[in-house]
């Protein structure tokens, strides 16, 4: 006490700072929570994530979501425009959503064939969880339950939300089935490239030196070759007589061949930045083995970047598969992917009669944009200071 008096210090109670307590909450939150909080702020990213969940739901349960067999040609409904859904009847009263009976008529003056609603012939309410055509969910579970449908006979009227193509196949059902192949291929491709990208990128960034230079040159070299011509060449080598599954896997592999370079770059960048960090030095000084340092210390801190990079790479892969299938070098009929569906739109004359065969492009655009927004949001959430 005497000493303190000499020094001239006057004791007083330390004040609690409420604000400091609030700040502490941020300090003790685990990284994934921090990331989630930051991600939440991006409304666009959240909305896109919701859209993607819907899309993937459709992809997984496509048989359930689709009202019709995508391969079944309903001849009397060839090139039918999208069915309009009404909620008001002729008297203006609100009804549960329904559709009218349609008939193909020929205009007596112009001789144009049009497909018109004929309310007098009847209306069909839209029902949910209906019985429809038989299918095997995931190849083993038989069912005939569908999300929606109309109580009309196969010959009378159908609910074609996005119209039908020139063979009378329901576009909505086809796009739903297409989601399964297109979206899954993007995911699987990205995971294949993840393995290669993380390993090579990690080695490159962690060890540096010659091996880094070699891997970097390799990456640069791969990216020098224009991707589509390369993919085209490689996929043309896949034998024509291969079954769909093999072709699917082959294409996935091909797309991953270039895709890993993007991930490797991100991983390498992170390793390079982290090598210099003090916490790595501390781990090393305390005697941890290299492997332990990598797995326990470095990986958690760059996980968020990897997830963001993965998400941002998926749209490239979806576009690659769509493009390849579109020109006939990817998946082929009878496999259904959005690219395969779009190929049928290249026939200009039938496109003019039924422009709704272009609707798979909406699916592609929306999923690509959604992945981009979500990826941007994740990247910003991972590190708000990174570009």
């Amino acid at each position, binding site marked *: 006490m005497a000493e303190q008096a000499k020094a001239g210090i006057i004791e007083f109670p330390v004040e609690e700072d409420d604000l400091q307590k609030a700040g502490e909450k941020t300090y003790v939150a685990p990284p994934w929570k921090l990331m989630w909080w930051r991600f939440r702020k991006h409304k666009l990213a959240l909305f896109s994530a919701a859209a993607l969940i819907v899309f993937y739901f459709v992809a997984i349960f496509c048989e359930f979501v689709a009202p019709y067999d995508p391969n079944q040609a309903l001849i009397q409904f060839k090139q039918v425009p999208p069915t309009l859904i009404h909620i008001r009847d002729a008297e203006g009263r609100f009804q549960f959503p329904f559709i009218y009976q349609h008939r193909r008529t020929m205009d007596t003056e112009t001789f144009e064939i049009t497909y018109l609603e004929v309310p007098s012939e009847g209306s069909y309410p839209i029902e949910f969880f209906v019985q429809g055509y038989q299918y095997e969910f995931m190849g083993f579970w038989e069912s005939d339950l569908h999300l929606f449908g109309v109580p009309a006979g196969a010959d009378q009227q159908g609910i074609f939300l996005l119209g039908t193509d020139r063979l009378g196949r329901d576009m909505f059902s086809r796009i739903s089935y297409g989601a399964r192949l297109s979206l899954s291929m993007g995911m699987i491709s990205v995971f294949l490239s993840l393995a290669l990208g993380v390993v090579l990128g990690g080695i490159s960034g962690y060890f540096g030196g010659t091996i880094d230079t070699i891997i970097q040159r390799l990456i640069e*070299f791969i*990216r*020098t*070759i*224009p*991707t*589509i*011509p*390369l993919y*085209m*060449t*490689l996929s*043309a*080598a896949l*034998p024509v007589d291969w079954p769909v599954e093999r072709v699917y896997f082959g294409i996935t592999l091909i797309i991953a061949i270039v895709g890993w370079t993007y991930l490797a770059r991100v991983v390498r960048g992170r390793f390079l930045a982290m090598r210099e960090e003090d916490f790595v030095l501390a781990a090393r000084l305390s005697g941890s083995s290299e492997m332990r340092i990598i797995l326990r210390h470095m990986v958690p801190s760059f996980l968020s970047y990897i997830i963001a990079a993965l998400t941002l790479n998926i749209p490239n892969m979806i*576009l690659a598969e*769509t*493009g390849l299938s*579109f*020109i*006939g*070098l990817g998946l082929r009929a009878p496999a259904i992917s959005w690219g395969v569906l*779009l190929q049928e*739109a*290249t026939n*200009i004359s039938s*496109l*003019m009669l039924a*422009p709704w065969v*272009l609707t798979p*492009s909406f699916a*592609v*655009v*929306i999923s*690509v*944009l959604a992945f*981009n927004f979500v990826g941007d949001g994740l990247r910003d959430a991972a590190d708000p200071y990174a*570009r």
Partner: protein
Amino acid sequence: MFRYIIRRLVLMIPTFFLISIVSFVALQLPPGDYLTSYAAQLSSMGETVDQEAIESLRERYGLGEPYYVQYSKWVYGILVRGDWGQSMEWQRPVSQLIWERLGLTLGLAVFSLVISWLIAIPAGVYIATHQYSIPDYLMSAFSFMGIGVPAFLWALIIMYFAQTQLGLNVGGLFSEKFLDAPWSWAKVVDLLRHIWIPCVIIALVNTAGELRTTRANLLDELNKPYVELARAKGLTESKLIWKYPVRIALNPFFSTVGWSLANRISDITLMSVVLSLETTGPMQLRALTSQDMYLAGSFLLLLSVLVVVGTLVSDILLAWVDPRIRLEE
């Protein structure tokens, strides 16, 4: 600077070598001995098969011999005789078929690159300095359209609308009469009239991404001390922005010219199939589906070579613009 260029040129050689190997491997992938199926095809069409001609082809390209022999014969042919192989389907030397198409592909890629830069750089600078304004939001919307909708889809949509609304056929790069005609001023004009739509599509699809990059790069730079000091010296806002941060923010553009070219060539390939353009795309597709291997392989090889040359140009540009790189050599 000179030494820098020489070094880059020397480094290109192993790259070319690797590319040729990759192309050769890709050539060999489709199963079957090409010549036998070709002969079978000919005879099934009722044409007489000239055994001697087949044998001389077999000899020339080393078919049936070990791979390294085939490879060396192929490379030798290219380097010494300018012989890129024979297109079985078209029954002509590959070199007769590819150069014009390659030139148009490159022209389209470069032209669209220039247009992209002319738009992306001023626009990017504007929206970085006028954040949250209406043009900023418009540009964002535009970016999304470019990122979300690939070139071949745009081509399809534009083709559809042009056909139905305007009755125009926007396919092809030349009108009927100029297709096989020798080059003349009139042909160039015809080309320009047709090329602007594909050019605009490719330019806009890529500009979208470049716009975002310019904006992001510039935003990073604008808060830095050297910008503030320039302002403190009394420079006008526009002068100091263009002289200092924009200069730095442009570096990534120069360094990614090669990669940007590769991307564009990729986009052009798909778009050309839709619009039936006389670029490499449709012909490469056809060559691949009919296993016309030398034609297909040459495309892959040459397109990659174009990109490598483009990378060299971008390296030189970067060195010219950034003294740190120039003086390090």
